[in-house]
């Protein structure tokens, strides 16, 4: 068969190519134009100028190219501070903690065996942890629901480092905001409550309550971050975390035998109560700070599970 000889179009785009330029006035018709050699951009065409200045063969923004955990840390910090949900969730959390201190401070009744002012002031943390958990889940699940995760992992393919950076940034924010909120709540509650409704806490009570609550908020958030990484779905992950947070403390007592006892003693809510109220006032065999260690184990296990799945799964 006789294929018509094509015009001697150069095989590579680098060669100068005058084809087409004289025909700039021709009506467009490219269903029938197999030999159109449209490159390189023709001078007569609008917008044909290179978007970049011509460069030598070396591409890429200059700079050290070794992987750098500091970079992904900075990136994750930028990410978390530039979405509104972070601000709102943190505001809700702080409002609950401080607001509950004000409510309890104004309404506590005289009691024969009063709690300390720090215990009563920090009641709000039990509710505010829901906000911490939600933010923990959203930190990763929002990336999946929006598709941002593909941009993130294309830019930084070391996936476990990405999760680690998220965890560090999130935990730091949660600890700082938690500590500030709890301190304000305590100062407010302590000022409002008379010695008839609450007794004065010792210094160790104060440190345990304030620092412990902030640590707990960071840990329950990290636990949620791990769950969010595993489930990748905001609503599903938040529901799961809430279930794990609330159900054991509500129904642990109904489970018979040693299992029920373990659930009642070692569930997150009980570990938090230990931090707020002290070992003597709350049931359970575990001491407050070892309880936080257990909480850290929960968070660590959840993050490790998330990291394993994040590494192996397709995005």
């Amino acid at each position, binding site marked *: *068969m006789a*294929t*018509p000889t*094509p015009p001697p179009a150069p095989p*590579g*785009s*680098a060669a100068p190519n005058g084809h*087409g330029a004289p*025909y*700039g006035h*021709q009506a*467009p*018709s*490219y*269903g*029938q*134009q*197999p*030999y*159109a050699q*449209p*490159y*390189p951009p023709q001078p007569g065409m*609008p*917008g044909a100028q*290179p*978007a970049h200045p*011509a*460069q030598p063969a070396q*591409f*890429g*923004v200059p*700079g*050290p*190219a*070794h*992987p*750098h955990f500091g970079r992904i840390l900075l*990136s*994750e910090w*930028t*990410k978390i501070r*530039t*979405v*509104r949900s972070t601000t709102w969730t943190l505001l809700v959390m702080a409002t609950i903690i401080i607001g509950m201190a004000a409510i309890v401070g104004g309404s506590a009744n005289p009691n024969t065996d009063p709690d300390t002012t720090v215990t009563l002031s920090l009641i709000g943390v039990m509710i505010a942890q829901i906000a911490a958990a939600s933010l923990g889940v959203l930190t990763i699940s*929002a990336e999946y629901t*929006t*598709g*941002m*995760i*593909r*941009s*993130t*992992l*294309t*830019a*930084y*393919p070391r996936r476990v480092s990405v999760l680690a950076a998220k965890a560090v940034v999130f935990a730091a924010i949660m600890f700082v905001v938690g500590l500030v909120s709890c301190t304000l709540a305590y100062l407010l509650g302590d000022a409002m409550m008379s010695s008839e409704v609450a007794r004065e806490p010792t210094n160790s009570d104060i440190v345990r309550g304030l620092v412990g609550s902030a640590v707990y908020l960071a840990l329950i958030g990290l636990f949620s971050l791990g769950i969010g990484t595993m489930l990748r779905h905001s609503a599903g992950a938040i529901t799961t975390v809430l279930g794990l947070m609330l159900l054991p403390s509500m129904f642990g007592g109904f489970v018979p035998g040693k299992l029920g006892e373990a659930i009642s003693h070692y569930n997150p809510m009980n570990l938090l109560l230990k931090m707020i109220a002290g070992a003597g006032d709350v049931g359970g065999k575990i001491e407050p700070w070892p309880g936080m260690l257990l909480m850290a184990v929960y968070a660590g296990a959840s993050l490790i599970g998330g990291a394993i799945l994040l590494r*192996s799964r397709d*995005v």
Partner: protein
Amino acid sequence: MIEAQGLTKRYGTKLAVDQLSFQVRPGTVTGFLGPNGSGKSTTMRMILGLDSPTAGNVLVNGRPYRHVAAPLREVGALLDAKAMHGGRTAYNHLLCLAQSNGIPSRRVDEVLDIVGVRAVAKKRTRGFSLGMGQRLGIATALLGDPGILMFDEPVNGLDPEGILWIRNLMKALAAEGRTVFVSSHLMSEMQVTADHLIVIGQGRMIADMSMRDFIERNSQAYTIVRSPQLDKLTALVEAKGGTVAPDEGGAVRVTGPEPAAIGDMAAAHGIALHELAPKFASLEEVYMALTGNAVEYRAGVPGQPPHPGAPGAPQGWGAPAGWGAPPPGTAMPPAGAPPAAYPAPQIPAHGSER
């Protein structure tokens, strides 16, 4: 340089990508062509390390993507326009990605200028139109000034101005010596953009060759001839080994001798010619013929015969009337005419979106 070796991806029992081996070289625009659902996006995700291959491997500049330390400086990719958090501003979206690769923040301003979204840089991307999202996605790809660029269906949903802009951008990037790998399910788009073609269907390689070779090997040419002395001319053509078939309106299609040879023959024998028009099978037809039996999702078009690429359809024998063919009597425009600023009308005869 992108090199794939026996790249395979299996989802359950479905083979999405089947033993693809290819190279994408610098300095050219390589078109990655296939019907919807043929495995183009899966292949691109495997190149970027987002999906793990079931078998085989793919290297970027000689390394697996996951081992590249600052990948944005080597590879820029536009996979989908909305791979961003809608609540974050365009500037902050680019900033957080730049920071992860140690790219200075002034580069963010630069790419915002290049793609022309500087004016909305401080706006949340949720409200962006598809075109704006696409431009921002391209800004992401250009952040690290990479030597390799990948675009997955970049013109989808864009207006003609945006399409022209992306085409010219891709050509300019390749002309600078970069590797440009762009997927599309539209042959007409590739025809005006790509220098080299990789065609796949149902995950399998159909063709891997330069655009010119692809056209030469796959399109057949013929000549429309009108003459009051057709009988005489027919005898001459057939004596030279050509074939003559009737065409509409008393014209004939001559296959074999080139138009010049037919004209010379006619002149030598004193035969009057009323029309002598070279025709080529359109690339759309070639592509449909190639991928016709590799189309996974096919939508029937009521009241239309099967598309010309259906298995068994003769290749290269003209487009259906009124489809891209110049009106009778117009000569074939010279090769090398510039690409149209507007996309050719697409015939939705094959492949429906998933």
